[in-house]
């Protein structure tokens, strides 16, 4: 591209902004507002997912072994569990350890000195990477001959897992709907800015401009509008997050939620991308509609 044409292109983009300033600003403002709404929802969803995961992740499987299990059996099982790709970590709790723990917990309430045999079994505490693997893995372990019984608070855990699945699906649905709504709002706003220049587009065609010569500055303008709207949206969201997040964590200390773990940077990037991409596509589609086939 030679310098004259590049200059012409940028001058066109700049003129579209400066000579239709009110319209351009309205479009940017509208994009910014829809990005803020989308941002709040994305953040809420991320926090909520994090919260649920934190709750569900607390679930462990306690595997109580029969007294007949030899140290060799225990060793083999330990190795098998460690090798299992679903397993995050495994801890062996010996009879003695279990008794010590119980002693400490009941200290001053019950005199365990009276007991001279240890009734507690050896056990494993297994933590899985995905909480969803807890029920099937527990079932498999229960089937082993050395295992006396397995406990993972099955009723509660299964309910939590169902809740997580349902809420996850609903959340995804809401986000998809909201994304569609945001895209439509941005599309319509930009379509109006193009519509206002329908006559100009026709004239450009009549004086011999090719469709691409007309289209590119518009597409670029759409991209910049989306980008500007997205960035302004972020400028609103960021301070709001900075001030509100700590308060939220303070006021809800019973929730196992650390808002610092929400990937805010990721969400920010998504928002700006949504603005830019939708803005560009919107311009593209709108101009193409007014570029009458000659």
């Amino acid at each position, binding site marked *: 591209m030679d310098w*004259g044409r590049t200059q012409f292109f940028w001058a066109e983009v700049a003129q579209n902004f400066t000579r239709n300033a009110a319209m351009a600003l309205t479009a940017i403002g509208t994009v910014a507002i829809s990005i803020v709404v989308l941002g709040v929802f994305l953040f809420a969803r991320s926090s909520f997912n994090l919260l649920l995961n934190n709750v569900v992740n607390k679930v462990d499987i306690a595997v109580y072994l029969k007294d007949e299990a030899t140290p060799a059996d225990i060793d083999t099982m330990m190795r098998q569990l460690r090798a299992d790709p679903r397993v995050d970590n495994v801890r062996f709790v010996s009879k003695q350890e279990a008794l010590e723990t119980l002693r400490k917990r009941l200290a001053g309430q019950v005199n365990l000195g009276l007991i001279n045999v240890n009734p507690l079994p050896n056990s494993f505490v297994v933590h899985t990477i995905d909480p969803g693997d807890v029920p099937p893995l527990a079932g498999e372990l229960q089937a082993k001959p050395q295992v006396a019984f397995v406990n993972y608070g099955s009723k509660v855990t299964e309910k939590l897992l169902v809740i997580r699945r349902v809420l996850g699906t609903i959340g995804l649905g809401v986000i998809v709907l909201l994304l569609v709504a945001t895209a439509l709002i941005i599309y319509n706003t930009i379509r109006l800015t193009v519509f206002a220049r329908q006559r100009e587009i026709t*004239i450009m065609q*009549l*004086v*011999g401009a090719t*469709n691409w*010569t007309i289209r590119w500055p518009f597409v670029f303008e759409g991209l910049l509008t989306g980008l500007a709207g997205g960035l302004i949206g972020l400028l609103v969201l960021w301070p709001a997050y900075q001030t509100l997040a700590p308060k939220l964590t303070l006021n809800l200390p019973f929730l196992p939620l650390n808002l610092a773990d929400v990937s805010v940077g990721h969400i920010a990037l998504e928002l700006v991308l949504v603005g830019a991409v939708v803005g560009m596509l919107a311009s593209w589609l709108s101009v193409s509609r007014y570029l009458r086939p000659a």
Partner: protein
Amino acid sequence: MIVFEDVSLVYPNGVHALSNISLNVARGEFLFLVGSTGQGKSSVLKCIYREACPTSGDVVVDDWRLSTLPHGKVPFLRRKVGVVFQDFKLLRGKTVWENVAYALQVTGATSRDVARRVPRALELVGIAHKSKMFPHELSGGEQQRTAIARSLVNNPLIMLCDEPTGNLDPETSSEIMALLARINSKGTTVVVATHNQASVDRMRRRVVRLVHGRIAHDEERGRYHVGLG
């Protein structure tokens, strides 16, 4: 340069605008297209720059057969054909200078070319002193001149003018007509749709009269009204 081969044009709403028009305009010719309003003058011009496509028949412009011209070529046809529209069709958001430059810039002209040719066109039509103004700040005659400057800035083979003196006072009208004659004398084929009787009678060029979309009369060195002299 321009050939109409038995052209008929029916608009989508069913109006028969042109019926069996056959016409041959030679390179460098100056032609008046006359007829009262609604007789099809603008429609003839639209067929030349492909804003309208004949329902039957064909138009050939500088060896380009328009019925088979691909869509992608239409912009290039329009660069050969400078059009001065009845309603000027200036870009509102651009100054006089920018309006004229635009027609050049879309052809991929370098900025040096633009800087050289735009002032020349503006001076030729006598609007250079208003080059920083926007169309709404201009009088009708000044807008007309801007439109003419835009249509000739990239040296078109053909210039089409749709009622270029439509709303102008007699004095400005003759200036504009003189300007068109000057452009024609440099080799550009010029077709002017008009009902400005005075200019037509004074200039004595080829006159084609349209009545109800048909050619009623075609005369070299003609007058506005047939049989009056």
